[in-house]
């Protein structure tokens, strides 16, 4: 499975989560290793009783760094999970606030870490990234890491992330969708083409006439209704 296929698997599962998500979580951990060349570890930390545990990890390195934090009862993954705040150590410096973790990271050649809290999950949890270079979690890498965190959260939560839109906005979008569907049906029916070809026709008119596709769709539907009345 290439990287895009892995993303497809994880995001499809995040859109319709199932109870047995172990295999998909493992794929997500593999994707975590790929967010940046410097990434060498990825794991999910979640609350377990009075402590924490690693629900999934890409490799023994990530697990070892998680365990170092659990043993010390402090660390960026615990803090991110408990406080719901991103914890970025970039670079990881010796000493407080996470001395044990810093020491363990140093022994493994890990120089930076990023822990992203997972929103609306059943137990406090975080997605962790460990890297051998500072500054790895920025730009595209950070965007990918954040998207992966949201997907993992959906898997653990057992339901997809709800879009932040109002009922009114959703109703309007559904009304527009219905209008487009009717226009596509009219064009496909009259031209003998597919619905996708009809969409392409509407797009082409939008571009050549420099108008909203919905205005054009309304004309198509209205014209069809007029023809029906006339006949």
């Amino acid at each position: 499975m290439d990287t895009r296929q892995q993303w497809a698997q994880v995001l499809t599962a995040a859109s319709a989560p199932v109870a047995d998500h172990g295999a998909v979580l493992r794929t997500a951990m593999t994707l975590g290793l790929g967010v940046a060349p410097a990434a060498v570890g990825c794991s999910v930390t979640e609350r377990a009783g009075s402590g924490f545990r690693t629900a999934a990890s890409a490799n023994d390195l990530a697990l070892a760094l998680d365990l170092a934090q659990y043993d010390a009862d402090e660390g960026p993954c615990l803090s991110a999970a408990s406080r719901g705040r991103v914890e970025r150590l970039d670079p990881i410096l010796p000493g407080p606030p996470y001395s044990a973790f810093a020491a363990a990271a140093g022994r493994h050649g890990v120089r930076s870490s990023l822990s992203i809290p997972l929103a609306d999950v059943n137990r406090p949890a975080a997605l962790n990234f460990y890297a051998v270079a500072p500054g790895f979690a920025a730009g595209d890498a950070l965007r990918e890491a954040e998207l992966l965190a949201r997907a993992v959260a959906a898997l653990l939560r057992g339901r997809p992330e709800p879009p932040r839109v109002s009922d009114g906005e959703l109703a309007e979008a559904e009304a527009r969708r219905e209008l487009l569907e009717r226009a596509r049906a009219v064009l496909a029916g009259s031209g003998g083409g597919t619905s996708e070809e009809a969409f392409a026709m509407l797009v082409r008119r939008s571009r050549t006439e420099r108008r909203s596709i919905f205005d054009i769709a309304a004309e198509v539907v209205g014209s069809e209704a007029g023809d029906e009345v006339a006949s």
Partner: protein
Amino acid sequence: MIPDGQGLSLRDGMARSGMRFDELWLRQLGLGGDAGLLEVEAYVLGLLKTDRYQHDLLAQALNECFLERGEDHPVAYRSQPAVD
């Protein structure tokens, strides 16, 4: 009309629009799209492969936003079949 394949990428169009991904998801829903919220973001970031239809649906969703601002379809489309 900007020729097929020319113009902004989905990613650059998204950055220029200033939209949130929730809004883009809503706009593609209104156009008949079925992608989930996270999938829409992944398409724009290039993490998921789009076919021509999916790409042009997202391009139109972005361009509808630009049309509302008086701009003319700055986001590129993939090649489309000839229309009589």
